[in-house]
Structure formats: structure tokens, C-alpha cells
């Protein structure tokens, strides 16, 4: 469950317009908070395909490629588009590659839900880490093992930026 802030988007605009240096510093601070998760998540990607035939070329199914999968894991510190519920993400950890997403989420619903399903595929890739629906094997596992430190650091960075902005630019 992500933390919710108020005025984060407005603060970012204000920083960009009136205190660009502070804005850049804030972005770096947030990135520094997210980098450990990304690094750890990339480490969760196996170098060899957990399934024998996944790495074989041919067909439409995304092929296992550790390099592409690791490259697809990253972070984003700019506001996203609002989702269906109206929330805009100020900082995200993303797993953007197709094969990485498969590795991340495979088996979320299949094990035990449908008797006719074949759980061997998911079980072969290992257990899912996380709670509730937010379960995964790469970024979600890294975020789970971070214990919320990244979230705290991001919130702190935003809070500090706001305070600094008010203390400097707001007094003008």
C-alpha cells in the first residue's frame, strides 16, 4: 500500500519554477532512496532460465533474457498519469520488460485457485514474496525486504524539500 502525500505534484512544479537546484537535489535524494531496491530486485533475476524451454527462441511468448529483464527494472521519480482511482505516483519501482513481468508475477492466481491449472511453471520460478496482491519475485520481493525504508526516505525527501522551499522561497 503506497503512502499518500498532499501537494507533492504542486511542490515539484514549484521547485522546478522557483528552486530548480533544490528540485534536482530532491530528485536525486529520491532516486538514492529507490536505487537499493532496484539493485536488489535486479539481483533476484536468475542468470539462467528457471524453465528449460523458456530461453528458447521462437514463438510469440517472451523469451527469458536475464539482461533484458534486469535492464527493465528501474525507478521513476516524475509524476505518473493518474490511475483509475485518481492517484498519481510521485515515485515508482518498475519492472518494464515482458519476461521480467512474467517472472515477477507468474503464479499470483494459479496456485491452488484452479485445480485444472498447471502450477509447475510458477513453482519452478520460486515463491512469491510480498503481501496481498502485491506479490512478486523481483521488485516486490526487494520492496518487501526493504521494510519500507525506501518509502520513508522518499517521504522524508519530499518533506524536507517542502520545508526548505518554504523556508527559502516562501519568505521572499
Amino acid at each position, binding site marked *: 500500500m*503506497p*503512502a*499518500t*502525500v*498532499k*501537494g*507533492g*505534484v504542486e511542490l515539484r512544479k514549484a521547485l522546478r519554477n522557483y528552486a530548480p537546484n533544490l528540485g534536482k537535489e530532491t530528485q536525486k535524494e529520491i532516486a538514492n*532512496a*529507490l536505487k537499493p531496491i532496484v539493485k536488489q530486485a535486479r539481483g533476484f533475476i536468475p542468470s539462467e532460465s528457471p524453465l528449460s524451454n523458456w530461453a528458447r527462441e521462437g514463438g510469440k511468448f517472451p523469451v527469458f533474457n536475464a539482461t533484458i529483464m534486469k535492464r527493465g527494472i528501474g525507478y521513476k521519480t516524475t*509524476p505518473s498519469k*493518474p490511475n*483509475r*482511482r*485518481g*492517484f*498519481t*505516483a*510521485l*515515485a*515508482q*519501482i*518498475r*519492472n*518494464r*520488460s*515482458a519476461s*521480467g*513481468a*512474467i517472472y*515477477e*508475477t507468474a503464479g499470483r492466481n494459479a496456485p491452488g485457485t484452479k485445480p485444472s491449472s498447471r502450477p509447475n511453471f510458477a513453482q519452478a520460478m520460486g515463491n512469491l514474496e510480498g503481501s496481498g496482491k*502485491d506479490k*512478486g519475485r523481483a*521488485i*516486490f520481493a526487494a*520492496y518487501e525486504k526493504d521494510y519500507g525504508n*525506501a*518509502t520513508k526516505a*522518499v*517521504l522524508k525527501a*519530499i518533506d524536507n524539500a517542502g520545508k526548505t522551499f518554504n523556508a527559502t522561497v516562501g519568505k521572499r
Partner: protein
Amino acid sequence: MANVVIDIATQYTGNPAFKKATNDAQKLEKSVAKLGKQLAGVFAASKLYAFGKASVKAFAEDEKAARSLALALANTGNAFASIEVEKFIGDLQRATGVLDDNLRPAFRTLLTATGDVKKSQDGLALALDISAGTGKDLGAVSMALAKAYGGQTTALSRLGAGLDKATLKTGDMDVILGQLTEKFQGQALAAAEGYSGSIAKLAVASQNAKEIIGKDLLDSMRMIAGQDGIGGAATAMESFATQIGNAIYGIGVLTTKIKSLPGADFIGRFLSAATQVSGLGALSKFGASSKAASAGTPAQSPGQRKAIDKANADALKLQKSKNSLAVIDNANTTRKLVLTADQQALEELKKKFDVERIGLYTALNEATGAETRARILSLIAIHDNDAALASKAKAELDAAKNISTFADSAARAAALLLQVSYSAGLASFKQSEINSLTGGNTTTTPNPLTQAPLPMPSSPLESFRQSEAKYASYSGNSGSPIIVNVAGSVTTQQDLVTAITQGIYNNQASGIPITYSTAY
């Protein structure tokens, strides 16, 4: 593309679905409003068109009925009563609530039958009473009365008026009308006083309003149609209806509603007040003044008006250009006058230093003869290009020539005179010599004119001929020699002629006229 993300920090910025729903709702609202306006416009336009059409139709029918009645009056020799009849029908309409569209045909029917305006008016009033009393149609009642006037009482008996057969058989219209009057008198007025009567009166007012509006609509369409006349009436009506819009539509709606709403009196007052308060009154006044203003002149279409305005503007522009040119022309004329005056001054100065002119004037001053002076004056006029001086010089020259001619004639006369006197003296001398030699006393007095015919001047001294005989007798009677004293030496005849000529010149220079009478 896969979108597996973890949102570290989020902010609620509003649900796009809600925004979309809000926008869609707003768009829907606008669309509905626009559609409503369009529907209202279509509805109003169609209603307005229908009302305008009905108004024009009502006016056309009313005018047709009025023309028919006027023609009937003229055919029966009652054209003089046309205005009175129209007033009577109008009053009857207001009093009874019966439309003039019904009254006019009824009156025309009665007028055709009776041929008398008074009888027709009484008959129409009675027909209204009978119609109100029996519930029969006014047209049928008036037709029955008209037939009764013609001697056919059958239709009258079928009206259910309760006339007995004996009375009808008599055919006496006074009796029949008397009975009918007794039975139905006041029915029409009574019917007009009730609620239904008020409604009928309002219907009459509504119909009259329609006719008035219809007339104005037709006039307006004529104005809009311009030279094409009323040919495009439908198009013109639609265009006119669209332009006038809801104003006439409102009148139409109110007029229609009056028929069905109670409290018509209040509505009438409201309409009157609304007319005074709202812009409708001002619009009505404007229309009335426009109609009065255009009564004497034909209506102009916008195109004609535009063309006239353009022609006026062009004429004004042309006049301005002419004025500008006139100003320039005046300035040029003034400048030319100044230049002319300067030129004249220069010419005058030039004349003062003109050597040739100075010489001519010197010669003029030194000249003694009139002819010479005139010639010099002519030269001066030619030199100066002076037409006035030239004409003057020419006159003097002609006078001088005449004088010269006269002088020549005078010289000839003097020569003749001298010759005559010489001949006479010679004859006298000869006679005296003969006498002295012969001692006789013979006297011969020869007629010198017969003895020596001399050339006579032909002109201009014709009178000299007349005096010739007188001179001859005079000289003949005297018989003595004539002694002429001449200054200087006169040795020859030519010297004598020259001396006489000079003497004549001197006399002329002294102002003594040279005529035969002054010579003697």
C-alpha cells in the same frame, strides 16, 4: 508492455473518470439546451408562419368582402353610402360580436334584394336578431329575408320564426317584419351581453387583429419583395417571420389564448398596458409613422434604397470635385488677372520708350493736314494694336478723304467760275473796243454758257448747277469786269487756282464751312 510497478508515494489528483463524466454531463447539458433552442426556434417559426399565413388570408378575405360590398353598393346606385355602410357594419360587429366577414355578405344579399341602404340596414339588424333567437345561420336568415322582399316567403317560414301562414300569404313585408321584430327584437344584443357574447367579441377583436397584422404583413412583403411584387409571397413571409421572430408569435399566442381563457377583460387591459410599456408600442408607432410617411411615395426595396444612396453619394462626390475645380479655376483666373495687369504696366512702360512710336507721335504733332494726321494716327493704332484707336483713325481718315474730294470739287467750281468771269470780261472788253472804234452803241451780251461749254463737276455740288443760271444772269446784267485781289503774284491760271484752293483750305482750317451758300 508490461506495467508492473510499485508506487512508493502517491497523491490524489482527481479521478479522470469523474472529470470525464463531468465533462460529458456538461456537454450533454449544452447539447440539450441547444437542441431545446433549436426546437423552440423551429416551433416558433412554424407557429409564426402559420399565424402570418392565417393573418394574410383573413385580411385578403376581408378585403375581398369589402370590395364585393362596395361593388354591390355601386351597382345599386348607393356608392355614396359606402363609408356609412362600412361604419354601420363595424359598429354592428362590435355590438353583436358577429364578424364582419358574415355581416358583409348578409348585407349584400339584402341590398341586392331591396336596393335600399336603409332597408338593408334594418333587415340586417333584424336578421341578426332572428339568427340569435333561432340559432340559424345569419347567411340563411338574410337570404330568407331577401327572398321575402322578392315575394318568396317559403324560406322565411322554414326559419322557425313562428310566422303564421296567413301573414306570410299576404306578402306584406311591413306586417311580416313587424311580427318578426316583435318576436326577436333585442336578441342579438342580449346574446352579445353574456359570457359567450364577450367571447364572441374577443373573437371579433382577434380576427380584426389578424386582419390588421395581415395587411401590414402584405405591405411589408410588398416592401421586401420590391419590384418583384407579391410573387414570392411565401418566401418573403418566411423571411419576414424569421426576422420579426417571437414578437408576433407572442401576439399570436396571446390572441389565440384569449379565446379560451376567462377574465378576458383583464387580459385586454394587460395587453394594452404591455403595449404601452414594452417596446411593442414604440415599434407600433414607428410602423405607423413609416406607413404614413410612405403613403405618398412608392415603397423602395433595400436594393433600390442602396442604389439611391449610392447615386446620392456619387452626386455629392462629383459636386465636391466640381467645387474643388472651381476653386482652382478661380485662383488661376485671379493669377491671370494679376499677370495681365503686370503685363499691361510693362507694355505701358515699353510704349514710353518705343522710338518708333515716339517718332509717330512727333509726326502727328507736327502734321497740319487732317488726312495726314489721320494716316499717322492709323499707323500708331497699327503699331499699338489698338482696335479702338484704329477705328477712330479710320473714321478721321475717311472724313479727311471726303474733305479732299470736296476740296477738289470746290477747286473745279472755282475754275469754272474764273473761266466764266474771264469770258464775260473779255466779251465786255471786246464790245467796248468795238464801240470805241465804231462809235456805235451795239451791245451784245453773249451767253458764256452757250458759247463756251465747259466741263462741269459731276459731284458733289449739284447745287452749283442750279445756281449757274442765276450767276449767268447776274454777270450778264452787270457787264463789268471782275477784279480779283490775290495775295502774291498770280501770273498764270494755275497760280490763281492754287491761290483759291489755298484760300479754301484756310477757311476750312478756320472752321468756315465750304458750301455754296457761304461762298455768296
